[in-house]
């Protein structure tokens, strides 16, 4: 067993603990996800969320409307009684949030070597989010992630701790004012609404909205990448070699062994990529018509960041159909197609990447079920590559969350990966995770989780632990 280790230095831990205690003590009314919005509108977290960060139907509509109450476009003109005004015009606490989440104790059994770590939450996030005008909203996230696995050239990896632009950093612009005229068939009365002939039976429009910057395009998918109740398990690197892949929802993973980014960096097989990236540079356009949401956009390239290594960009299309607005029931199904345009590299050749799949979500009372099935295919694979290569892969993830009491959230998730890539390296994966999260306060919870590798221990980095247990914390202000 590896000695207990700590990935943060002493000063960072003390500083974090101090801030945490202060915020829990002084601001008990904040909540998970984006508590600034809860403060701004004087609402509880569960007005927009089922189990944060999962959104309910109202939260989805709020997001769709550009972080505003649908039909009430108010920009920053709305002022509410709050914790205290900092700026004369804008209450800073109405746009500022802070979140810390991650494991405190984590233990891998059956791995080589076994290890138990005492650690401090890996993710520290600061948000500034709100509406600048009625039509322009912003989301700025600064993130400090400890021990994140990053690919580097030569087939190697490294663990980095970085502070900088977080998963998302974008402007969202509502284009509807520009398109108002075509909707007004029989006398439109307000933004977001178009009356049919005779009135009362028309179709509702929201958007189109444009998101520009570092975005999570899957935010409108039935299973959004960034809304995980069971947090990802980070990978482990030793001397440039990946000793253990991270555990993420396999449906969203890159799935291919031996594939690199267009500029030659290694790509972790379980890294969420393309449309399902937690955040990357791109432009997104989405609009809602009745119960149908249509989305299209283009991303910079596979883990390209702000590097212009893919001049062709990666376009995608997504359609989502919502259903249910009564009997405590709602849900949606989504279909996706994503084309990676010279976005990745196999050996030394650029290849295209086709991703498609669907996801679904059903919420009934305290139960929230969601899953995704994603297929990936590497196209135009060059002849004469160094070894046999499986150019197809798929991943499946399904999760259920149940709020058993007003304080206890139970979750279970199953992940299945049918991997592709170099046959000499590749390995499939199956894992099941269970978690109990107890909410001490609205803005502070502990969780206990267990992830079990159903494929057993193997020589491949994907299978190098049998069981993973963690005690963690999720706090935000």
């Amino acid at each position, binding site marked *: 067993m590896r000695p207990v280790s700590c990935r943060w230095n002493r000063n960072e831990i003390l500083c974090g603990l101090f801030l945490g205690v202060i915020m829990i003590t002084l601001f008990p009314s904040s909540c998970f996800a984006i508590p600034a919005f809860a403060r701004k*509108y004087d609402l509880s977290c*569960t007005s927009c969320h089922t189990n944060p960060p999962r959104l309910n*139907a109202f939260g989805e509509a709020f997001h769709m409307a550009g972080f505003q109450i649908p039909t009430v476009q108010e920009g920053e003109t709305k002022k509410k*009684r709050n914790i205290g005004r900092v700026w004369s015009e804008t209450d800073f606490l109405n746009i500022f949030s802070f979140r810390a989440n991650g494991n405190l104790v984590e233990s891998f059994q059956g791995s080589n070597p076994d290890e138990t770590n005492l650690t401090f939450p890996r993710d520290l996030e600061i948000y500034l989010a709100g509406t600048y005008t009625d039509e322009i909203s912003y989301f700025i996230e600064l993130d400090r992630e400890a021990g994140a696995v990053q690919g580097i050239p030569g087939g190697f990896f490294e663990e980095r701790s970085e502070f900088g632009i977080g998963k998302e950093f974008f402007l969202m612009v509502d284009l509807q004012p520009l398109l108002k005229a075509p909707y007004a068939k029989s006398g439109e*009365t307000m933004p977001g609404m178009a009356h049919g002939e005779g009135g009362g039976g028309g179709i509702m429009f929201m958007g189109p909205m444009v998101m520009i910057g570092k975005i999570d395009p899957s935010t409108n998918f039935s299973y959004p990448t960034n809304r995980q109740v069971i947090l990802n398990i980070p990978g482990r690197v030793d001397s440039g070699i990946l000793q253990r892949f991270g555990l993420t929802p396999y449906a969203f993973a890159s799935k291919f062994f031996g594939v690199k980014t267009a500029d030659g960096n290694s790509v972790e097989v379980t890294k969420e990529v393309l449309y399902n990236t937690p955040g990357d540079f791109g432009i997104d356009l989405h609009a809602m018509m009745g119960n149908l949401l249509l989305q299209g956009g283009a991303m910079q390239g596979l883990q390209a960041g702000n590097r212009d290594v893919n001049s062709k960009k990666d376009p995608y299309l997504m*359609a989502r159909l919502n259903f249910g607005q009564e009997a405590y*029931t709602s849900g949606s199904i989504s279909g996706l*197609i994503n084309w990676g345009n010279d976005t990745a590299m196999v050996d030394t050749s650029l290849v295209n990447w086709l991703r*498609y799949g*669907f996801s679904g979500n059903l919420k009934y009372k305290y139960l929230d079920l969601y899953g995704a099935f994603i297929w990936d295919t590497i196209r135009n694979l060059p002849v004469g590559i160094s070894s046999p290569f499986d150019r197809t892969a798929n991943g499946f993830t399904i999760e259920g969350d149940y709020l058993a009491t007003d304080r206890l959230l139970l979750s279970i998730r199953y992940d299945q990966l049918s991997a592709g890539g170099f046959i000499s390296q590749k390995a499939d994966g199956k894992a099941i995770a269970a978690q109990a999260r107890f909410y001490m306060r609205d803005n502070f919870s502990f969780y206990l989780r267990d992830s079990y590798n159903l494929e057993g221990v193997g020589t491949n980095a994907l299978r190098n632990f049998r069981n993973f247990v963690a005690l963690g914390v999720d706090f935000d202000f």
Partner: protein
Amino acid sequence: MNRHAFSFGLVVVATTCLSLFYTEAGFGQTNPEQGHDMGRMEETGAADIATGKMIYRMTCIHCHGSKGRGDGAAAIFIGPYSHPRPNDFTAGIFKFRSTESGQLPMLEDLMRTIREGIPGFMPSFRNLGEERIRQVSLYIAREFIQKELPTQTTIKYVEHVGPYTYSVESVVRGKEVYKRLGCFACHGLDGRGTGISLKDKRGLPIKPVDLTRQETFGNGTSHEDIYRTIMTGLDGTPMPGFSSQFKGKEESAWDLVHYILSRQGR
């Protein structure tokens, strides 16, 4: 055809078919013919009702549901395992009224709730504007309540002036009223609302309001709001209306209001 081409085709076809079917079948849209003709409601313009319907379907539907039963997709998490839940308009029970307990609210009462919101649970829609607030109130009345709303109340609302203004003597008298009416049974002697388990009409646990914290007041925090809450009660909850006890003694109601305000340091 390889298995990936087949799977891809399946996804595209399924999504397209379901979208078309759903749109054609009109699911998720209420029938505009459903509304009943009811006296004054008939006089309101169809355009007002239609606009109100649109607002409702874009915003209110998520909590109050497509049939106004308070069972929308987001409803249950408003108060998980506890009070409050979004109101069921069809049940005819309304917390926030200026009418006697057991009566329907006036249109202005619906408008006030929409305009002010309910701290913690329902956002304020003030920026919607008075005309649109009226339109959505009309739609709720016509589509879900389906009865004519009262246009006046028998409760006497005296203005907060003259003998009814705040004074130390009034606060002292209010404290006596607080004891005499038994308010302490739920709200506690110190007004903090602790030490008692209650349930609302749906059988959900409900906590008495902490009278020392104005942010917990769902029905508004102004002097007039508190006066109205005491007089009308909050139907659907254990809070009764006290209008009969204060009939002809409205100054005593104001004494109680002043005592509650004093508990908040106001």
